[in-house]
């Protein structure tokens, strides 16, 4: 629906001087709102905890506002047609994440995470600006498919040589800085999948033999993808980072499906996932205990060992109820380890309640929807696949971790995008926002090019 309109747009291109649908003003107003909400949350935490607004609330607000403004200016300068919702949502989620981390810092005086997180966020926004300024056209990435995949594999293999932290070898520690390279790998893999699939679109769609009701592509086409996927999953299993493994798998299946339209892929994917999950769940002790925990979060209570992390997390959500206890008034710190990272959502659930949690979920949903919309509006298959891939990364990540901490699926360590403590994650997410801004700019911009590509896209769309 959007695609035809945008393809038609160049046909009757707006006359010069008439304002196009840039919506930068809307973005600025929304950004202001996002910053204000974050500052209010910051002040509320202070009021609830100490009875006074934190003295640096204004400074905090000014800093966040400045970051948002710079990002906005970069978008205004180089991506004037970008979707006006992407950046404000990212700023709001990041700001709320900082508030939640600051709130938890008050309970753990020896472990201050808000300031490092603020530094990482600044770095993330800087990277956002760099990407928006330097990457003039997302199609430039198409040429770096194999570089991307090589870099992704290298990043994923690297942490194996570093000591495991909390049962997972996903960190690189250099000095005081810890770094999770797998986070960046997911963007690189999305770029590779998008480039490779778009280049082999017709081969994937038509060639291959038919087994029962499923049409398979030839091994020549499918081989490299499956190989890459297997390697990445294998590496992740070795590193015991099941969350990311699940994410890559989901990303792979979704992109393959979008590229080929074969429901068979979904079926095979689900079968593979089920088999893999069962195998790993029963063999690997680290994962096995997670599954046990998920099946019965209260087993440790009955055993007299007190509540486990998941039980504590569920207690926190339950304590939130409909409206929450109010920022700064909950006890999610009882979760203990990883309360600021993997379990940050429990704090949101307890202190903001179901209402606040739904708002958060809807923010993510809106963000993902905007990514998909950009994909729909584009005409080049690479851009489409990349937009869908990046949006799906966020969607899957939210589902995997939110479902995990709320007892919907087995818990796998993963960062809630933008909210959770974790530098690599925040920086990566800002790059995702930058790429989506770039793609949505291409999708919404009036196109002076010929209608050839547009026709092609329409034919394909009709198929």
């Amino acid at each position: 629906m959007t695609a035809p309109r945008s393809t038609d747009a160049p046909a009757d291109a707006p006359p010069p001087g008439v304002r196009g649908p840039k919506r930068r003003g809307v973005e600025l107003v929304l950004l202001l709102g996002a910053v204000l909400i974050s500052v209010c949350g910051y002040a509320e935490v202070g009021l609830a905890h100490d009875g006074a607004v934190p003295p640096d609330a204004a400074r905090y607000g000014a800093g966040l506002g400045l970051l948002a403004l710079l990002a906005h200016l970069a978008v205004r300068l180089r991506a004037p047609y970008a979707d006006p919702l992407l950046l404000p949502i990212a700023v709001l989620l990041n700001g709320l994440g900082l508030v939640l981390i600051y709130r938890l810092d008050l309970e753990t005086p020896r472990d201050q995470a808000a300031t490092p997180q603020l530094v990482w966020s600044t770095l993330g926004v800087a990277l956002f600006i760099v990407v928006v300024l330097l990457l003039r056209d997302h199609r430039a990435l198409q040429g770096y498919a194999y570089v991307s995949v090589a870099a992704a594999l290298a990043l994923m293999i690297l942490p194996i040589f570093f000591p495991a932290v909390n049962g997972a070898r996903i960190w690189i520690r250099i000095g005081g800085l810890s770094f999770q390279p797998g986070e960046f790998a997911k963007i690189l893999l999305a770029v590779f999948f998008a480039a490779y699939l778009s280049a082999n679109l017709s081969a994937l769609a038509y060639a291959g033999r038919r087994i029962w009701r499923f049409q398979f592509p030839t091994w020549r086409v499918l081989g490299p993808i499956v190989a890459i996927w297997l390697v990445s999953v294998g590496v992740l299993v070795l590193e015991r980072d099941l969350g990311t493994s699940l994410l890559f798998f989901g990303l792979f299946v979704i992109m393959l499906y979008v590229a080929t339209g074969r429901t068979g892929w979904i079926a095979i994917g689900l079968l593979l996932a089920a088999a893999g999950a069962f195998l790993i769940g029963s063999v690997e002790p680290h994962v096995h205990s997670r599954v046990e925990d998920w099946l019965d979060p209260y087993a440790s209570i009955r055993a007299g060992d007190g509540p486990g992390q998941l039980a504590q997390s569920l207690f926190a959500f339950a304590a939130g109820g409909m409206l929450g206890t109010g920022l700064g008034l909950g006890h999610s710190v009882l979760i203990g380890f990883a309360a600021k990272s993997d379990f940050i959502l429990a704090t949101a659930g307890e202190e903001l309640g179901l209402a606040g949690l739904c708002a958060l979920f809807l923010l993510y949903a809106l963000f993902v929807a905007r990514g998909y919309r950009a994909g729909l509006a584009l005409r080049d298959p690479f851009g489409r696949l990349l937009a869908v891939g990046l949006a799906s990364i966020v969607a899957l990540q939210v589902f995997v971790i939110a479902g995990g901490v709320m007892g919907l699926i087995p818990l796998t360590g993963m960062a809630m995008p933008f909210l959770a403590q974790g530098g690599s994650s925040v920086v990566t997410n800002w790059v995702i926002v930058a790429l989506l801004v770039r793609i949505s700019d291409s999708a919404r911009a009036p196109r002076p090019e010929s209608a050839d590509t547009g026709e092609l896209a329409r034919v394909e769309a009709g198929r």
Partner: protein
Amino acid sequence: MIRYIRRAAALCLLLLAALLVNAVRVMLVEAAELDANPANRRTAIARWAEPRGEIVVDGRPVTGSRDSGQQLRWERTYRRGPLYAPVTGHASQTYGTTMVEHAEDELLSGADPMLAPLPLWNDLTRGRSPGGDVVTTIRASMQEAAYWGLDGKRGAVVALEPSSGRILALVSSPSYEPGVLSGTGADVKDAWARLTTSPNQPMLNRALRQTYPPGSTFKIVTAAAALDSGVVRDVDAPTDTPDPFVLPGTRQVLPNEARGCADASLAYALQWSCNTVMAGLGVDVGLEGMVEAAERFGFDDTTLRVPSWVAKSNFDRVMSPDQLALSSIGQFDTTATPLQMAMVAAAVANTGEIAQPYLVDRTTTSGGATVDRTPRRTYRQAMSAATAFRLQRLMVRAVEEGTGTNAAIPGARVGGKTGTAQHGFGNTGTPYAWFIAWAQAEDSARPAVAVAVVVEDAEAARADISGGGSAAPIARDVMREALRLEAESRGAPGARGTRATEPPAPARPRGAPGARRAPETTRPAAPASPAPAAPAAPARPAPDRTVPAAPRGAPGERPSAPARKPSAVPRGAPGSGG
């Protein structure tokens, strides 16, 4: 490709829906269950996040709270903890609450919805009201008199206001410091282990939760049953009971400690505590009549709350005549809490009616506004008013010239009944000394106080243990304090009347030196001389003295006791003299 993108988007929507539905499940549907999970610390954190409300005695709080700086922030403290422990109980973050701390926990912790300024206010704001205060009926000076009277000996004292049912003193001894259990941690665990394993059972509330064979004090109940049922029409007429008395259906002989009990009148039997007469009367009344009478006094009632629950006092419903005879003098399976026996005395004092005993006068918000006030209620009509008046006279006689002379208070009308209860296998256990009494100021329309004292003093020589010797002086001190307080409260309207009767109480004319706080000065004298400083010398030696002698000899004479209850019969019976 567009169609597939839409489908992928639909998948994402499905994931979102799953998350939202799951959120509703966890946060709304299962929330109450999760909140109530004992492993969830939130309830405890919220409960101890604010200072607890206070328990007030005589206008002053006997509790407090201390900021521990821990996760469970405010810990309970107690002022004069051991003195008031049987009233307050403890409020421990580790071991829960007992007594008033338990019964009024919702109010004290602020969870009571009645404390909220508006209905549902706390549900809406998710707040908790500041804890409310509990104002007790205890009078501090009476509590102290009872506490110092027991002086660490094992025993209990309960004092009631007969007309209202207010519990004026509630003492269990030895007591404990409830504050040592307040917090969390190793110290508290050690203290708990120490208190729960101590052979003295300091945490046992003997006044409400321990039952003792009531011994001769139960004869009041038997007498009431005999009078109400018409078995005895004239208290001064001789009854047809031989001495010694053979238990019906057996060959066992029930001896007396007192003399002159053969065919003695009810009046004489109560005055000198004749086992034979009372056992015979119990058999004459019959099982049904005795059970009914006992239940009218509150025996076999499992539902009594003051508001802490009270242990059941027992009077068997199925017995053979010989067992009934023994039960009628407070032996065999008959047991009673000190509160129950105080209610017996109160029934006599209050013309047969027992007012529902209660410990909490009213509850207030932290600001002092009354939340709830305990109304006066009738518990039961234990006997007819006429019977009560006759028993009053008989109990007064027992104090004026009988077994209870140690309880006499000049200037006041005091009625009492002693008891010495045998217990243990073969009655080898140290006997319990009982005394129940009531007192009425001469210028007052009705008795001011009814009291029950039990002393289970394992350390004293057995000869010292008798209701009249050990327990009566404690009862006297408590009653004297009650009379003084009553006179004070009447002071304003009838100052001249008060002045006239005042001297006896505070002046302590009977040569018992020392403040009312130190009744122990009188206590050692009591066992030594049979009639310690009593105003009127008894006509004959007080049976107090002879009583313990018999049981002491008894076990020695019959070393091979048959097995169970009936075995205790011959020995249980003689014990209940005094």
